[in-house]
């Protein structure tokens, strides 16, 4: 049986990694605007430049963001023991958005650069995560009450986002609108490298925590009785979630439903054990967002649908189905 679980985890890890690699390799070649593959093979402009400077970094950003949002969703579902807990439903995504929008709107000068928006989004996510975790632990809020609190936090944050949007000048207002639509635009490779350096260690830490996440999903009393310091793990887990959501949201804007759809779909396929689910969520989430982004830039080409719209159009019906089948 030990071998069974280990083999199953390895098999799922291999298959989900393969899915991520295949989508990451294939999807940059797919797009609405026709690409001259001869030019690409000869490394000639403009196709080579489009491929290397636009499509590849965009695919890598989608891969990292999908992985981060998906594993954060699985993490919150374990910590709160609620299938509906996600970065969005807890208000973390909207708080990160508020941080980023505040930086874009009020940063002196033309435009706030990546580090400023990034730090502001992380700070927004961290404040809300600390608030939610404190309510859960100090006031003993149930996961249901925390999710209701998340709805209130969402409302407050999005109202402030709208307010700041109105207060910002015309140029910054356009930037905010574009950012709020949520999209995986091409970014520079150093930004991708920084994002990877932040996200990957957190993902590895979560993989190592997955056996403990199993027992935490049994409830605090049971986990504490099995030697788990639930208070410490919960705080650490929420901090990890804030880093994952804040650091990706700063670059892509809010992208809804990835943290909901991917863990739930995978849970139905690979089962509830987080030792199997977490690696699947990391690579499956990455592959899912790469595919969504490819759909977004292909179906109405040369126009582009923001990837946040695609994930929401897929995720909305899924969310209703989930509520229906609970």
């Amino acid at each position, binding site marked *: *049986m*030990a071998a069974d*679980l*280990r083999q199953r985890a390895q098999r799922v890890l291999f298959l989900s990694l393969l899915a991520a690699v295949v989508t990451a390799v294939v999807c940059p070649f797919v797009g609405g605007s026709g690409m001259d593959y001869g030019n690409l093979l000869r490394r000639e402009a403009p196709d080579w430049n489009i491929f290397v400077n636009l499509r590849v970094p965009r695919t890598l950003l989608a891969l990292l963001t999908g992985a981060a949002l998906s594993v954060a969703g699985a993490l919150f579902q374990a910590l709160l*023991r609620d299938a509906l807990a996600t970065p969005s439903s807890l208000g973390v995504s909207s708080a990160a958005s508020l941080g980023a929008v505040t930086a874009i709107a009020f940063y002196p000068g033309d435009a706030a650069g990546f580090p400023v928006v990034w730090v502001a989004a992380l700070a927004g996510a961290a404040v809300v995560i600390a608030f939610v975790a404190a309510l859960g632990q100090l006031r003993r809020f149930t996961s249901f009450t925390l999710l209701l609190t998340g709805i209130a936090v969402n409302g407050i944050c999005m109202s402030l986002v709208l307010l700041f949007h109105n207060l910002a000048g015309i140029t910054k207002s356009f930037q905010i609108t574009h950012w709020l639509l949520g999209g995986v635009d091409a970014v520079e490779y150093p930004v991708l490298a920084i994002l990877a350096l932040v996200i990957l260690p957190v993902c590895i830490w979560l*993989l*190592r925590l*997955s*056996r*403990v996440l*199993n*027992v935490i*999903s*049994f*409830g605090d*009393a*049971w986990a*504490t*009785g*099995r*030697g*788990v*310091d639930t208070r410490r793990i919960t705080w650490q887990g929420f901090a990890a979630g804030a880093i994952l959501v804040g650091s990706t949201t700063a670059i892509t804007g809010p992208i809804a439903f990835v943290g909901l759809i991917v863990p739930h779909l995978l849970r139905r396929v690979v*089962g*509830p*054990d987080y*030792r199997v689910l977490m690696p699947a969520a990391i690579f499956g989430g990455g592959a899912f967002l790469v595919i969504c982004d490819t759909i977004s830039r292909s179906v109405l080409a040369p126009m582009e649908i923001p990837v946040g719209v695609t994930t929401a159009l897929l995720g909305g019906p899924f969310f209703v189905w989930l509520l229906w089948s609970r």
Partner: protein
Amino acid sequence: MSLLAVENLAFAYPGGANVVNGVTATAERREVIAIAGPNGAGKSTLLDLIAGQKQPGGGVCRVQGRDTHTMERAELCRLVAHVPQSIPVDIPFTVEEVVLTGRIPYGRGLYENSDDYAAMELAITRARLEPFRTRRFSTLSGGEKQRVLVAAALCQQAPILLLDEPGAHLDPKNEAQLWELLGSLRDDGQLVLVVTHHLALAAQNADRVWLLEQGRLVADGPPCDAMRPADLERVFHVPFHWHQNTEGRVFLTYGR
């Protein structure tokens, strides 16, 4: 040095009166101790304090002479296995996987090792879970779930076992088997503390009874001493009677 010693243990919820109020007692290996008392007497809270689930407002709890609040959680859980009154019923794991959670205090590796699986097999056998070991926990009856949780605590292989109303969902046959199991654990050298409202079963099966009233330990001794009818009537506000049958066995009944 006692295996378990609680000294002047106290606990109160914020802004409330003491739920546990100056409890002092000791317990040794090879004992089954029933903790009895009316609702709200502090039985479950006392168990939570011993298990380290709650921080005492006063006093100290020692296991093998060491203050439990100076111990790492995993270390404490290798000495004390606690089955709380309730846990979520919709856990999507199998019986085997639930039982294996008892091995968490022994290592934080990603996968269980052969010792863990050996302990699981032993616990499943002792709790008679073989027929449904691969079934999902959420599909079991209340009584079966209770046995699985007890098995998980057995899998923890701690010398002290704390059970909070383990017979709550059990039919008479399963409850009798549970008390048999507790007796065999006692014979193997374990200390078992069990919160129960089934005083008649406690009277027949426990070695000692701790009788709690409003957070205080009002009696501690063998059932016939700790459960004198006058004391029980004062605590529970119902008359109790001891009876003896022709074979010499004694029984406790209550009611007018």
